[in-house]
């Protein structure tokens, strides 16, 4: 099947066309046909890029004022006689939509019907920056591709298996009931994919495994996957909690935030930006939110950059320890995401000293400059295995779309 994967932001649409099916998933033979993006929607010079493996990148800068025009453009590009990859939009068998927040309503991917759409809209309150664009993308795509199934894949769904003792905050219970304030967790598709790959690579059923996954990218989160289910994850009610990130603080005493708001006379929006955009690696180093730049600066003796790296690794190490405790041990630790896949230094520093709990990294394997793709980086004798697994969220969305279409994932109630 040819599945179009759409990831709609407030001013962008990212897309991939992926050939996949149950058989191809089993054989890991699913294939990227084309991918691209439309950026700066709403301006007279939007940026459209279109990549087909083996071909030169196609780029255009037309006026694109809204998502409808953007997705129509995507459809036209896919079928374009010169640049396209299919002859007719009817060749597309389904559309998979990334939806950031599924609240407490969605524990799995789902075919979208009117009822599902209604429930997606009810989650807007929880993700006011993301869900509206995701929903807008769906509404428009449904008009452009009216006769094929559309599937929603939620960032939060995988974590819906968390038990109350890990997802509740110790606030008066009424706050949860009234406002839905609890841990939801994000990056669910990525954590799930990593756990799935470990199961496939090791041939051990996930029901037997205790896995810790560390998705370290622009946003960072770790997840304790106990016997195949998300038991706990570092991101919380919003993607701000937990690990230190490029510009996000991660964990902080909420009273410290209240104190700063009072002392600096901040508005809520300013405090929000302080925590989400001025903090994290950028805030500590004062240089950059980019781990590569920090590593370069630290190597040249910049102490602030070094401190940012130290804090980043220390916070992650604490969570690895905590999650091992929560699961009664750990069998596999996975690094993924831009930093997780590419920074040997961060991987090494984050597990440094964890041999006592069975995590021994092999410095040579870890730092092998030639190594690419999925690989084990623990020593031969390490009781728990350490892995690098490049994540592929679009592939997960395409695969879930197929599973929903063929009924492996049951359809939603009408």
């Amino acid at each position, binding site marked *: 099947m040819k599945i179009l994967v759409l990831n709609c932001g407030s*001013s962008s649409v990212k897309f991939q066309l992926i050939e996949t099916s149950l058989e191809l998933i089993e054989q890991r033979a699913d294939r990227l046909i084309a991918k691209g993006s439309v950026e700066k929607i*709403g*301006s007279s010079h939007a940026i459209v890029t279109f990549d087909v493996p083996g071909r030169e990148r196609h780029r255009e800068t037309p006026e694109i*004022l*809204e998502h409808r025009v953007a997705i129509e453009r995507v459809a036209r590009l896919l079928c374009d006689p010169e640049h396209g990859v299919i002859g007719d939009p009817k060749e597309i068998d389904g559309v998979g939509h990334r939806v950031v927040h599924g609240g407490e309503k969605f524990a799995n991917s789902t075919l979208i019907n009117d009822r599902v759409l209604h429930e997606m809209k009810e989650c807007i309150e929880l993700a006011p920056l993301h869900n509206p664009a995701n929903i807008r993308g769906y509404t428009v795509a449904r008009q452009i591709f009216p006769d094929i199934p559309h599937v929603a894949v939620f960032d939060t769904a995988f974590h819906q298996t968390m038990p109350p003792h890990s997802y509740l905050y110790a606030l008066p219970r009424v706050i949860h009931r009234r406002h839905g304030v609890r841990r939801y967790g994000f990056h669910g598709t990525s954590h799930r994919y990593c756990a799935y790959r470990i199961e496939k690579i090791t041939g051990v059923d996930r029901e037997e495994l205790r896995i810790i996954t560390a998705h370290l990218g622009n946003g960072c989160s770790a997840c304790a996957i106990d016997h195949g289910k998300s038991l706990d994850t570092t991101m919380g009610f919003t993607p701000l909690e937990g690990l230190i990130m490029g*510009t996000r603080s991660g964990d902080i005493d909420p009273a410290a935030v209240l104190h700063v708001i009072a002392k*600096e006379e*901040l*508005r809520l*929006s*300013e*405090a929000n*930006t*302080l925590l989400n*955009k*001025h903090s994290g690696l950028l805030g500590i180093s004062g240089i950059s939110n980019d781990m590569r730049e920090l590593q370069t600066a630290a190597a040249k003796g910049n102490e602030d950059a070094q401190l940012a790296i130290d804090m980043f690794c220390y916070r992650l190490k604490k969570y690895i320890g905590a999650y091992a405790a929560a699961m009664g041990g750990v069998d596999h630790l996975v690094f993924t995401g831009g930093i997780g896949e590419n920074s040997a230094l961060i991987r090494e520093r984050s597990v440094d000293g964890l041999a006592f709990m069975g995590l021994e990294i092999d410095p040579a394997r870890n730092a092998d400059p030639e190594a690419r793709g999925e690989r084990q980086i623990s020593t031969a004798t390490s009781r728990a295995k350490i892995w690098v697994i490049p994540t592929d969220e679009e592939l997960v969305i395409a695969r879930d779309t197929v599973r929903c279409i063929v009924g492996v994932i049951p359809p939603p109630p009408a």
Partner: protein
Amino acid sequence: MRLRSIGVVGAGTMGQGIVQTAAVNGIDVVFKEISREHLETARRAIETALDREIDRWAITPSEKKAHLSRITGTESYDDLRHTDVIIEAVEDLWDRKSEVIHDLDLIIPDERVIVTTSSTLSVSELARETRRPDKIIGMHFLRPVPKRALVEVVRGFHTSDDTYAVARRFAEALGKTAVEIHEYPGFVTTRVILPLLAEAMQTVMEGVATVEDVDRAMKLGFDFPAGPFQIADQMGLDDVLNSMEHLFQELGDPKFRPPAILRRLVRAGHLGVKTRQGFFSYNEFGEKTGGAIGGDVK
């Protein structure tokens, strides 16, 4: 229809505030001033305001760059022709505003809405200067524009429902809440706040309490975010005086009669936050730096 671009005529404090707010909310802005120097001054002021936002953690340096990229200055009305809504923010004097509205009417395509920011002049009378009275509407912003969540959308006698809908959408695009006002001197905010300011000044003049204590009492007693004297300083004491005189004249009600203390400060050139000295003294960012003026101005 989504609002993509606006034209702003006049980039004084009010105009700058509107330009900045629009750009920050992702709207392209073309603003017109009378000379290169005026354009440059306004642009620098907006940059300073955005730098201040960075200092307050409200935006990032890259966001500042993106916001500034949406702002274009011009000396020609022609460059406003292609914007979705035109808003004039020149001095609140009949001759200035009526001239600008008249000129815009000749140049701007007939179907476009023209907004006036006047807080004292009549929208209906300004509309009579044009061939499109149904497309003229008032929007009364409060200062500082980027910080105040309210805009009073003022319907003149001829203003159509469609025009009102455009203005309301414009307000929402700026991230503001609109309240609908049927034209009458002082609208809601000015009419209700002025007697309070006048009474506060009268209270000090009668020696009942100090400026600081009146502000403190109203802040703590009624949860005002700022006391009446600080509010007056933020509004601009010359503007407060003008508004009081205007409403006194229009409505004939003595509760709008300007107190002597206000006249004295204005004559001395102490106009509040914008001159860094009013009832209180301020730094360049409009933050209070010193205590209140002493009793000698009584």
